[in-house]
């Protein structure tokens, strides 16, 4: 068991989630043997399919029983198990500092990302980290070593949120830079236009990446529950806005609904694994739901 010194990781949560495995929803192309399906046939025990024999095939892989039944030569193929590359993309824009009861969205993202990284590393998967923020930018390509995990957890602990978001650019870059299929886990409040999000997700999907999105929101953001005019200071450094929540509350709510509906459409269209999270939820529950949701329910066969 890895000795954890990062206070954002909870030992109990890790132990509870250790019984669950992180699965990719899509076949992965790994560098070593692992627990994830690969598009390439391999020598695992799990049957994949039959195919007709063609000259040059290894005669040792002929299924003689099938020959006996059909009088034809079939080659019996098995799944290839490989490892997973998981890229954690954390939005480190200023808005991620928005806190609820002392826990900011960034803290929440840090816990989710750290726990996922730990779980993936325990499975032997490679884990990388990409911080998306103009004020704080960090890029750690996915690797499998224990030291790499340690460095990455340190990087997660040192993560700070400031400046405008660079999520769109980072996602586009990640889509291009990660050479093979990978699990891209995005942790962000996604306070950008849904169409921009659509472009990023479509880009990632085009590159055959499995994309999971943790949309982090805070309850107080969903309604302007103030009874007097306030000066709203943009946490990403923009111009402050003086507004009376009693006056513009309805319009705010309408804008939020429109945004969420648009986001729903984007998610439906891009087929990403989307999780809209209130950060006052326990993150272990969220992760358990996430992991269970990705567990394959049945296996394909003949």
């Amino acid at each position, binding site marked *: 068991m890895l000795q954890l010194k990062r206070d954002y990781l909870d030992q109990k949560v890790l132990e509870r989630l250790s019984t669950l495995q992180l699965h990719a929803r899509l076949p992965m192309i790994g560098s070593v043997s692992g627990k994830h399906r690969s598009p390439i046939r391999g020598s695992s025990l799990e049957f994949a399919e039959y195919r007709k024999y063609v000259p040059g095939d290894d005669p040792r892989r002929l299924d003689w029983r099938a020959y006996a039944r059909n009088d034809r030569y079939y080659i019996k193929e098995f799944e290839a198990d490989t490892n997973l590359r998981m890229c954690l993309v954390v939005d480190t824009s200023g808005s991620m500092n928005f806190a609820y009861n002392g826990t900011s969205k960034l803290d929440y993202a840090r816990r989710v990302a750290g726990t996922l990284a730990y779980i993936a590393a325990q499975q032997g998967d490679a884990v990388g980290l990409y911080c998306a923020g103009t004020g704080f930018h960090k890029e750690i390509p996915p690797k499998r070593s224990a030291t790499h995990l340690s460095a990455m957890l340190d990087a997660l602990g040192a993560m700070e949120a400031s400046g405008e978001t660079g999520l769109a650019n980072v996602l586009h870059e990640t889509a291009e830079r990660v050479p093979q299929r990978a699990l891209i886990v995005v942790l962000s409040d996604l306070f950008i236009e849904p169409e921009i999000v659509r472009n990023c997700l479509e880009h990632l999907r085009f590159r055959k990446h499995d994309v999971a999105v943790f949309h982090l929101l805070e309850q107080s953001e969903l309604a302007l529950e103030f009874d007097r005019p306030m000066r709203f200071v943009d*946490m990403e450094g923009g111009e402050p*806005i003086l507004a009376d929540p009693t006056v513009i509350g309805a319009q705010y709510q309408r804008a939020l609904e429109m945004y969420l509906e648009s986001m729903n459409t984007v998610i439906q269209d891009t087929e990403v694994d989307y999780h809209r999270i209130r950060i006052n939820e326990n993150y272990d529950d969220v992760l358990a739901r996430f992991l269970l949701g990705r567990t394959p329910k049945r296996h394909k066969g003949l």
Partner: protein
Amino acid sequence: MGFLQPLALVALPLIALPILIHLINQHRHRAIPWAAMMFLMSAKRMSKGMARLRHFLILLMRVLAVAALIFVVSRPLSGGWLGGIGMSKPDATLILLDRSASMEIQDLQAGQSKRSAALQKLAQLLEQGDYGTHLVLIDSVSGQLQEVDSPKALLGLPTTGSSATSADIPGMLESALAYLKANKSGRVDVWICSDLSENDWAVESGRWQAIREEFYQLEGVHHFLLAYANLPSSNFSVRVENVQRWEHGNDAELALDVIVRSKGSSDTTRQEFPIEFEVNNVRSVVEVELDRQGASLRGHRIPIDTKLRSGWGSVGLPGDANPLDNRFFFVFSEPTVRRAVVVSDDIKNGEAFRRALTIPTDPRLQHQTEVISANDVAEIDWESTGVLIWQTALPRGAVADQIAQFVDTGRVVMFFPPSQNAEEQLFGSRWGDWQTPGNSSQRSAVSSQQEDFGIPSGNLLADRRQPTVSDSHSFGVSWWRGDTDLLAHAESGNALPLNELHTYRYRSFESLGTPLARFDDNAPLLTRIATDRGAVYFCSTLPTAQFSSLEREGVIFYVILQRALEQGSQALAVASQRDAGPEVLADHNQWELVTPVDNSDAPLHLSSQRGLHAGVYRDGAYLTAVNRSQIEDSATAAPVETVDALFDGMSYRRIDVDVGDTSALASELWRVFLFAMIVALLVEAVLSLPSKSVRVTPLIDLTVAGGKTE
């Protein structure tokens, strides 16, 4: 709009307070770090128009509320005439009240006269506002200043009651000036309540220029004219111009000349009009036919008991807008012997006077004329003489005193030029040199002196300039007053033929009297000296042919002397007619009212009110009838432009009021502004209410199954 507390308006800039607070609050709002700015910006964009309008309205309501509060404190008054007075309160308020008979014109529906309406309005206004530390009343009757405790007290003062007198508005302003100079007050409001009657205002008088110049030197004096210039649609007045008691054998009768004047009547058709006569408690009614001008009843005869040697009566009209001119009192007695004394050293002239004075105008009258020399003055029976003709050197010493006393008792003295040189002076007048056409081409020094003193050259209405018979040997009369006094027109309306008069020699004289006729060279032919009672005339020529054609032409000379004799003899009569006034009964102390007075609210028990109301007074055998002056019946309202011009260059505001207008001059509007403030605050509160509770979007369905597991 005016304000009772105008100083509160200094706080008006406070209406910017809500705007200021709004601006300050923009920088004082609690700042909160916010992540979801994109929704805020969208919301702001969506609510831009309505929110701005709402904000603007809220701010406007707050400004209006503050403004209304300030107006409430400043106690606004309705009525635009108070605007622009100034910001300070008056230190003193002077009220100049016209109590003339014409101010008793009533609104028949309201039953309130112009005088009482003006008093009521003014009292109400001053009660609401601040009238300063002194409230001073100057009434037209007494002309005296009277300190009043409170505006309400104005309504109950005897000195604000009705009267049958005339007013002297310039005189009242002069009294106000004297008060202002003596007290050196700061800001003073002078309120003049009048009906702008021409005779009361004397708009042509030279006194106005002096009054204006005096007021120019005073600062902070504001004049307000409460003008009741509107005349009633119809009003009739009655007057008895002449009363004679005649006896024919065993019968006695009264002969009356009655004049009914109509003012403002729009009915041009002739109509029958009843005139009620009352003599010795016997009433009779005569129907007369009225036209637009009125009617006259000359020589109306009323039979009386022959034993009734003297008495009184009245002539009445049906009630109309002005009750004070609907009744006229008269007194009568047996005609007295008209006695004249001529003091002359010139036999021819003395004889001329005697002939003109001896022939009576009515054969039923008795005339006695005595011609004596200057040395026999001691023999004059002063008590029974009506007119004294003095054609010798002006007297001095005891004789001069005797003549002054003679005039004070209402008799008439006429001075004619003596033949001898004389340096004596009497009644402020002195004879000068004889003038002939050859040596009087220039205006006399006396005339120019008169003009220098601002004495008008004559009443324009009565001005008579006609072609004269002036030639190189004689002077012609170019101007004379035909409306009143000795040279007035005859009863037929024809002017006296003064334009046909030849004057070959006249003697100039220095005098400050009022000319009644002038020669071509502007030198006076006939001048009247101002006296309290009686009359003093100076005539600059003599009747004989050597001096003028007075005796030869006859008519003018006869009329002048007969009118003077009649006027002087009236003072000897047991019965006399007098115009109402404060001093009209000053000659006797025992005058007692024998007739009721029409206006029952008149405080007749006060000695100060005696003689101010129409009625008949008796003192032993003497009777006198007091009535409004003749000019009150005929005077019309001066044009408001003319009246305004009198106050040219002064702080002045005219407030035209109708007698039927019962609304207050100014009413406080603070309730309106209080209501406006409440409304503004309510609207502001409604606008500031938070919008309907916003339904918060629940974050259900947090996990969207967008992805498919292969």
